[in-house]
């Protein structure tokens, strides 16, 4: 078996473009997807993160600490959550990622000690 981290990313402005009903429907769909993956033993852990605007970043530059508001990288798409999954290989990880109902997934192999 191999472990991967799913980094769920999306254009965060989607929340402003949908109605309350649509958002609730999307959340329900994500909830069902998550529960199913947990039940199957695919997802072993994960979290939803608050929007990148709530983030603060600490950076070490030439030995000095710099604290800034916002995420470490300014980009249109931001990480909104993650899951650690356990599957046989990359093909299976891709198969699972394709069913994620809410945007994109970056699949990163976990470094095993």
């Amino acid at each position, binding site marked *: 078996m*191999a472990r991967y981290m799913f980094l769920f990313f999306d254009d965060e402005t989607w929340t402003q473009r949908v109605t309350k009903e649509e958002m609730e429907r999307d959340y329900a769909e994500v909830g069902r997807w998550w529960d199913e993956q947990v039940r199957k033993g695919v997802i072993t852990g994960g979290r939803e993160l608050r929007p990148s605007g709530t983030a603060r970043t600490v950076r070490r530059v030439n030995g000095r600490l710099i604290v800034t508001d916002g995420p470490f990288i300014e980009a249109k798409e931001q990480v909104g959550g993650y899951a650690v999954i356990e599957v*046989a*290989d*990359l*093909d299976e990880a*891709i*198969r699972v990622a394709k069913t994620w109902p809410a945007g994109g997934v970056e*699949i990163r*192999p976990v470094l095993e000690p």
Partner: protein
Amino acid sequence: MAAVFRAEAGRLTASLTRSLRDFDLAEECVQDALVAALEHWPREGVPYNPGAWLLTTARRKGIDRLRRAKRYQENIAALEETPGSSATRELPDGGAMRDERLELIFTCCHPALAREAQLALTLRSVCGLTTAEIARAFLASETTIAQRLVRAKRKIVDARIPFRVPERAELAERLDEVLAVLYLMFNEGYLATGRRGAQDRDLATEAEWLASLVVELLPDEPEALGLLALMRLHLARAAARFDARGDMVLLKDQHRSLWDRAKIDDARALVGRFLRPERPGPYQLQALIALAHAEAPSWEGTRWPEILRAYDALLAYSDTPVVRLNRAIALGQVAGPEQALREVDALAESLDGYHLFHATRAELLRQLGRADDARAADRRALELTENPAERALLERRIDAAAGVSPRRSPEIERGR
């Protein structure tokens, strides 16, 4: 020897990858074996069973490498267990060895690898090209290609890309990826003819060979048949594409007697195998279009309505401006240049930077008697291409049009 290498390299890499479970190592061993063959065969003669010789040598090289690295004891065991590995001549022949090249092709063309990595890896592992040969084919430096290969192989290992043929449910999609890689490889070689020396192993021929391998291993996949037929039909016309001076000749003006009839017959037989239309697809349609051209006695005598129908169907798969442009050429033959020009002009926004858009417009404008507009369009096309063969063709056309231009000729006469 090149033919033996190509036939065996992929088979060997596939087989060793299976037993070693290490793609990178398998590939290095095969390259070692090919190098050894280059040393021994010219001196001692090509062995009775070259495939078996190479496999045994590759296994020995593998054992050497593993011993040197002092790791993977169980992998050495896996190598030594394989029956027949002790004696070169008694090895089962290539036919008895399980053919795992399909697994290899699907691994090299895995969608999680970048397109350029897929291309380089397939040429290296399945076709057995050296890094230097691949670098020459892509006009890239050897270092770039070597890095690309290392990176791709590390990703296969680190991200655990499996060595297997995809399951039924995913086969169609994954096969599309493989065919896309082969078609790109083919075009890279086919369009570049004239840019490179003939001594290099030609990418178009490698791609055709790979496509025939896929058809051999997956005989019931209509799109694979379609792509192979399409490649054969393009290659059938290769000799007529350039004139004695090396200038490009348009399909319309090609000497059809130079077309390779045997290849066309081959392609026709392939088309016959996918003609039942249950699983249509873009390569099949393009093959049908190419076959209609190949079978036509002349440009005018081409089955244009059939070609137009195929383009209409093709739009359902790839509604791109380039497909629409080609469809417009067929439309011109069926419905006349005026209607075709309207279609072409509608593509101006997306294709303004594409030389063939302007060349096509020029052709239609000439048919409509608008010689000045035609010449301007040809000039714009000339500005946009750097391909010397295409440039020569356009320059010739502009000169010819200037010579017979109704405005300029009377002036010349008056001057006299």
